[in-house]
């Protein structure tokens, strides 16, 4: 491993750790369940991606890096799926939204229309 990839790897690992801390801080600071879930998303996506990328640079080309790529792929598929199951269950059982949440549920996105 050259010095440059070593340095880059540690930059990725360090910034990944930093975003983990930010996600944890968000979990503590956010006012309700729903807002906390957004903060948890930071650790699941950016922090996980940075740390695994840093580890791939440490491992170099080989089976270990293939495994790390698969870990990342599976995290990016399973974490939103599990998250959705959690949010859907919370919503279905009527978990209240924070008092300042705007419930403009009727707004509809742009339609594809006639084309």
């Amino acid at each position, binding site marked *: 491993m050259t010095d440059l990839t070593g340095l880059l790897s540690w930059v990725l690992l360090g910034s990944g750790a930093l*975003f983990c801390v*930010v*996600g944890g*801080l*968000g979990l503590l*600071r*956010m*006012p*309700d369940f*729903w*807002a906390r*879930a*957004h*903060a948890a*998303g*930071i650790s699941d*996506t*950016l922090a996980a*991606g940075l740390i695994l990328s840093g580890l791939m640079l440490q491992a170099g080309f080989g*089976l270990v890096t293939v*495994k790390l790529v*698969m870990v990342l792929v599976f995290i*990016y*598929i399973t*974490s*939103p*799926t599990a*998250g*959705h199951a959690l*949010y*859907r269950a919370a*919503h*279905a059982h009527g978990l209240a*939204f*924070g008092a*300042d*949440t*705007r*419930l*403009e*549920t*009727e*707004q*509809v*996105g*742009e*339609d*594809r229309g006639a084309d």
Partner: protein
Amino acid sequence: MPIRILVTGLLLAGAWLLWSGHNDALLFAFGAGSVLLVVGVSRRMDRVAEAPRVYTLGLRPLAYLPWLLWEIVKANLAVARLILDPSLPIAPRLVRVRALQKTPLGQTIFANSITLTPGTLSLEVEDGSVLVHALTAESAAGVLEGSMNRRVARLEGEG
């Protein structure tokens, strides 16, 4: 569908052998147990879900994934900035977005993409629309603007 079960089991066993890289009896037993468990669970899922279909997306995800990853990075930085702001300037809201995708797979990819970008969570997918919890007005506007919606719809192709 016994053939499907057999193929699933063989693929899973192959993946286990490739990724494990160990040849002792204990790990083989763990592998066999895991394969049986997963095959059993997916058989049960077949009974509650509609008949499984194979969708082909071809190489189209190769264009979508880099775009999605960049959206995830931008959304992460925006939410990190909110968390680190002493006044915590969030304005949570619920919005309903009509999904432009026609297949269950397309709608799943859309809902998962929404949840993967911090600042927006998908709460439920019903009657072709997604109920989204957004952390700020900007993140809600981002979903309603619809470029993710259109890109995932294009991912489905004409099939």
